[in-house]
């Protein structure tokens, strides 16, 4: 973990790693915001954010564009180890967003993570009952997102505000324990973590208000929950 801590504390921006942000900071941020707003108000709807050509280091397009749109000096950011150790990521976030980095996920307004480096859900801030909005927003870079739920054992059936009847969603590559904890976290609404999953230039959101039912994998998740309980 020493790599992570070092880069977190490194104040300097490496100018040789900097790249341009949006072509048009005002218009592009507005466009990306509307995508995120649509995603968050219609959970499970997959949208495309494709306004940048290149991204710093390991960031994918949609997570980079969300960062440019929502991060600034007022938002504390936690990065998962690989991202925190990636000078290109850290330098560009510092330069373009001026956002402070924190080493504890619980302190973060936004946590930005690779799918295989997710913090435990309970390690993030879930808000409190009087101010549930103070919770962390979790942005996860994943392999793929699709509304297909057949032929895989990771499919979800979504219900709740923003969904007219029901919507299927598969987020590929999330650890089992995270999927299980996310499903269980719904019991604590209005506390919880709002998630945005980013795959290349695609994004999909799962706010805490969305009920998640594992579809095909129902048995599997139930068994896991059972095992954990025992």
């Amino acid at each position, binding site marked *: 973990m020493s790599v992570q801590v070092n880069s977190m504390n490194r104040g300097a921006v490496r*100018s040789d790693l900097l790249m341009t942000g949006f072509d048009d900071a*005002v218009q592009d941020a507005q466009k990306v915001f*509307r995508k995120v*707003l649509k995603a968050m*108000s219609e959970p499970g709807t997959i949208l495309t954010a494709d306004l940048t050509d290149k991204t710093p280091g390991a960031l994918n397009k949609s997570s980079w564009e969300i960062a440019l749109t*929502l991060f600034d000096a007022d938002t504390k950011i936690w990065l998962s180890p690989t991202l925190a150790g990636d000078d290109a990521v850290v330098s560009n976030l510092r330069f373009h967003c001026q956002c402070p980095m924190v080493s504890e996920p619980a302190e973060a307004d936004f946590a930005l993570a690779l799918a295989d480096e997710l913090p435990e859900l309970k390690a993030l801030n879930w808000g409190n009952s*009087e101010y549930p*909005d103070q919770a962390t927003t979790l942005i996860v870079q994943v392999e793929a997102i699709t509304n297909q739920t057949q032929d895989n054992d990771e499919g979800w059936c979504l219900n709740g505000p*923003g969904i007219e009847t029901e919507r299927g969603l598969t987020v590929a590559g999330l650890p089992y324990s995270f999927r299980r904890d996310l499903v269980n976290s719904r019991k604590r609404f209005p506390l919880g973590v709002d998630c945005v999953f980013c795959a290349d230039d695609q994004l999909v959101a799962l706010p*805490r208000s969305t009920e998640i039912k594992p579809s095909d994998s129902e048995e599997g998740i139930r068994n896991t929950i059972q095992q954990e309980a025992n």
Partner: protein
Amino acid sequence: MSSQLSSQLNKPATQTAGAEGYNFAYLDEQSKRMIRRAMLKAVAIPGYQVPFGGREMPLPHGWGTGGMQLTATVIGEADTLKVIDQGADDTTNAVSIRRFFAKTAGVATTEHTADASLIQTRHRIPERQLRNDQILIYQVPIPEPLRFIEPRETETRKMHALREYGAMQVKLYEDVARFGHIATSYDYPVMVNDRYMMDPSPIPKFDNPKMNQMPALQLFGAGFEKRIYAVPPYTRVVSLDFDDYPFEVQSWEESCSICGSDHSFLDEVIMDDAGNKMFVCSDTDYCRERVEQGFTAENPEGQQGLTPEHNQVQQENKKQDDTKAEEMAL
């Protein structure tokens, strides 16, 4: 860093279509980001009031900065904006706000509900059903439904946290005891997604049922108290009531004197010194649309037995003809 790279990276926020010296839609980018973040939380916790910071938007008094800030934060070049005040597009406020965003954001504006992507409103929900590709932005004076029961914010926060809404039920029931029915006719409280009690802003309770399962996203902005709350599309919104006194909307014996509508919210208009009055649709665009479709006070069922659908088709054809005529004129 090379000066070339430096200037490239420090590309200033461009003034794409805005007026000279202003940021796009007048609001600075930092305030927009702050409001955007609050808006996403509001959407994630339907009906819950999210506080937001940011600077005051320097606007003439009476414009209602909450709705303006939300519109300025959401709006983009591709949008078409409609603004209504008490249902009308042609009041001083509505016209001023439309002009303001036409000037500072260069967006198209419209009076037609069907043509708008963003609708900023004070005190009404359009009669025409809104679509999923539209956003309705409410101007809110007092965001806290429990405020008149409990003035302290710390206490109302606790009441929401514990879902302690009995005091509101008592208040409404006092109405029943005094008047024999629930007298509250504006600002009528609702429960959102069975969790948060929400103030729908001073719309008539006639409009409350339109909020339930609405396909459009509904955003609420209170400028003075700096609160944002939201109802995502297709969300359950239920007006408070009692088993023995169910929720009821206002109704009129009269119909609209212009379009003959017997199902819209009517304004009473005094005609002369003798006190003669007539009733007309509060939603001026809805009334206009009906008149164009052939509905009149004398013929509230539409032209010569044609169904509204027929009239709609006729209207579409006429619209296309008009467009063609305009193109040819150009």
